[in-house]
Every structure is written in C-alpha cells, then in structure tokens.
C-alpha cells in the first residue's frame, strides 16, 4: 500500500447510499479509497450489506446515491479489470468442472491450448485436479466453492472481489488457498476486496480491514494491517498479529452493541 499512495485510487467510493426499491437503507454514507495493490477485507454482521457493497463496486447493482469509480471509470465500464467470486458458488449446472473454470477465458477469447493449461493449473491450486469431468451436482459444497475460486483466479483480474470464499472450506484447504492467494498476489499484485466472517483470515490477508455496522450498513472502524507482504504462515503465531486480531474482534463486537 505504501508504493501506491502516490497514484490515484483504484476504487473510490464516496457518499454511497443504497436501498433496494423502496426498502430501507442498506448502505448509508460509505466513503472509501483503495489504492492499487491493496487488499481490503470487509467484516460485519450478517445482512449488514457486505455483499451489496461488493456488488456495487462491480457494477452489478446501481447506487441509490453517491458515486463509485473504478480506475476513474464507472464500475460498468471497468468490468474488464474485475472478477467476482460469488457468495454462492454460482456454477453453471450444465458445464463440467473444467468447463466452468474455463468459461471466463472462453468468453474473453483465449485460445484453447493456453486455456486448457490454465484451467488445469487453477484446479491444481484449489485441490481439484481429478474432478475436471464432474458436474456441479456431483460436488460437495466446498468443492463447488473451490471451482468458483479457480474460475476467478484463472482470469488473473486486476481487481478481485471475493464474497466469503472460504466459509465452506476446512482449515487446511483454507490455509493452502490463502498462501496461494498471497503467492499469486506477489507475482500479479491484484487489488483485493474480501468479505469474510473469519477475523483471523481478514487480518492475515488484508492490508486494511473495514468493519461495517448494520441497519443501515456504515463503516464503524477501519483497521490498518501493517505487516509486510509476502506474509508467512508463522505470522499467525506472532504477538503483534494476535494483538491486532484482538483489536479487530473487539471492533466487530462493538458494532453489534451499538
């Protein structure tokens, strides 16, 4: 994040409010500037508007008030640079695992050979080598989510929006995936937006944690995570990490009480 400060922010959200139809305010007055290469986590109670915020940044739903720019453009225009890991795996039921992962590459016109190669690599990363030919209904919940993650990683987007990708994963898979994510970032430094309920993941992965309060969703705390990338798994055991974890958990608890 240090080197990025000089540049214009990649994502700039200001005065954002969102309501669905004539419903109540879901998000109220969100301001946010995210620099290139940052990894921002959103945590907050269920239903506070985290997914909605991600969908707003991706231009999947229009803002009711305020503005969002992505690389200076309206979100709809900047979609080429973004990809989304949806909260539900969102696989196409009629495509096999490999075909599902291949889809975004196919749609953007990659040639078959590199496409196949990339799909294989991504499935390797998420631990699904061997499941290429299965249909989504033959997968376990966690496997589906991993397919979805492989699909997102395969396009190597500049901006990656991840909506609770790891809730359904066991600790081991999660840790490996986290490490892979960090490894990919150190080569291909994408800007990340990450929704999670696992505070430890948030601290371990993020450069900044945004805590959202509910009803309506508002930013109640922003926690800078000062650890340098690349981060090693051992970081999790260090006192500064644990302290920050406690602070974050505290901030999250404070939300609910308010």
């Amino acid at each position: 994040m240090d080197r990025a400060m000089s540049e214009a922010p990649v994502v700039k959200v200001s005065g954002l409010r969102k309501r669905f139809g004539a419903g109540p305010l879901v998000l109220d007055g969100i301001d946010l500037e995210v620099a290139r290469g940052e990894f921002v986590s959103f945590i907050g109670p269920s239903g506070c508007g985290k997914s909605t915020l991600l969908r707003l940044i991706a231009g999947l739903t229009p803002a009711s008030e305020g503005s969002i720019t992505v690389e200076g453009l309206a979100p709809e225009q900047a979609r080429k640079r973004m990809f989304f890991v949806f909260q539900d795996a969102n696989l196409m039921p009629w495509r096999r695992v490999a075909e599902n992962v291949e889809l975004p590459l196919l749609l953007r016109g990659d040639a078959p050979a590199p496409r196949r190669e990339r799909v294989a690599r991504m499935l390797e990363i998420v631990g699904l080598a061997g499941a290429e030919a299965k249909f989504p209904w033959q997968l376990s919940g966690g496997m589906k989510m991993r397919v979805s993650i492989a699909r997102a990683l395969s396009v190597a987007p500049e901006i990656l929006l991840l909506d609770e990708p790891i809730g359904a994963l066991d600790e081991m898979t999660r840790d490996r995936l986290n490490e892979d994510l960090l490894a990919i970032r150190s080569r291909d430094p994408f800007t990340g937006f990450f929704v999670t309920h696992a505070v430890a993941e948030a601290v371990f992965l993020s450069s900044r944690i945004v805590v959202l309060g509910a009803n309506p969703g508002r930013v109640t705390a922003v926690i800078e995570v000062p650890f340098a990338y690349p981060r090693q798994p051992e970081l999790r055991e260090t006192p500064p990490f644990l302290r920050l974890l406690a602070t974050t958990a505290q901030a999250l608890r404070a939300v609910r009480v308010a």
Partner: protein
Amino acid sequence: MSASSPSRLAAFLLPALTAVALILLWYAFKAVLQVPSFVLPAPHEIVAAAWEERTVLWSAALVTVRGALLGFTAAVTVGFLLAMALGFSPRIKTSFYPLILVLQMMPVTILAPIFVLWLGQGLPSIVAITFVIGFFPVVANTTMGFISVDRHLRELFVMCNATRAQEARYLRIPGAMPYFLTGMKIAGTLAPIGAIVGDFLAGSAQGGVGGIGYMTISYFSQLKTPALFATGLVACVMGFLFVGGVNWLHWRLLHSWHDSMVKKE
C-alpha cells in the same frame, strides 16, 4: 428416495400392457354399447384396413412426412430464433409478441388461401400451414426459458463482459433447453397434424394419391371408416417418430445435469 425411474424393460412393457388393456376395453366397449364398425371400427379391422391400403397409405405418408418434417424444422428454427429475439430484449418482446399471437390465433382456414396464392398449391403451402400450427409452442416455451434464466448466472456473465451473443450461446440457450425441448415436443405432436390439415387446405392429389389429409377426407367421404382410422394410425406413428426424436434429444442434452433427468441419489 421415492420411486426410481422404470427399467428399460419396463419402459417397453408398461405401455404395451396399458395398450393391451385399452384394446380389450375397446372391444368390450364396442360389444356392450353395440357401436357399429362404421363409427368405431375394432382394432383388428383398422389393422386389416391399414394392410389392405398399405401402398396408398405409404405413398400418402411419404407426402405428409415431407411436409411435416419441413414444417417442423421451420417451426422449431423460426420459433427458437424468434424466442431468442423476444427473450433478449423486453422492448422487442413488447413490440412483437402481440403480432406473433395474432399469427397463432388467426384460424388457418383464413390464412390458407393467402398461402396458396403466394406459394401455390402443394408442398410450400403445406409447410407454411404446418409451420403456423407448430411454431407458437416453441416460441412460448423458449421465450419463457430465456427470461427465466438464473439471475446469479446472468451476473456471472456480466462480470465476464460477455457479449449478447456469448450470453445467448453459453447461458441462455443451454439454460432454456428444458423449456425449449418441451415446446419442441409439443410442436412434434402438432407437426403431423399440421401437415394433414395443410394437405386438407392446400394439398392436391395427382393421380389420386395425396397426403394423409387427402386420404382422410377421401376415406371419410367413401365411408371407409376402418381405413379412415388407419390414416389416424399413420398420423400417430409419424407423431411418435417426431416425439421420439425430441425425447432422444432431451436425453442427450439434459441427462447429465438437469433435475428432470439426473438419477437422484
């Protein structure tokens, strides 16, 4: 959970048994109510008549099958394309759906003379009539399939910057398949009927051999009731070929993923 789908053997045996039961019922019905054969012939009389008239029926069937096949293909193709246009843009749908309905709801008897005038007597007009009779089920079903596409998957395609054509090819078309195939199945049962009606309204018979529709009137006017029912038999056989084809397609396209097909475990 619950009854699993019947085995291959049962798939032949069960309808055969039902058919046998029905045929017995048919004889019983004829016997008890004393229905004479010139109203409702017995099954064996129908079969005998079909055999007796086999050369005529065969050439008539060939004439009709051609019309039915072409009309069916046209109905499915045009219906599908039309549905794609309608499903894609709500504006197109609002503008043209009513017109499609008008075409569907205008009795063919009224349209037939126009077709004959344009296309002449014979195959082209028969195909046009078959088309008119069969295309709406395809349009209605496929349109419903297109607009029922899962909105989460649509968002995925939006994120992929998919073009409309890509969205059509990779999302809407496969997603609409269960609906499309159902529409196609309906069109398949209507195609032989359409060709028969077309034959009736726009056909012609050179040397006394027209299509099945022509033979239907001919047998009817000659009071050859068993032969009349034999034309119905031929129509049914044709219909089964169409529906069988669509069922095969249904199986091919859906058996690996759709809930209507996938064995539940």
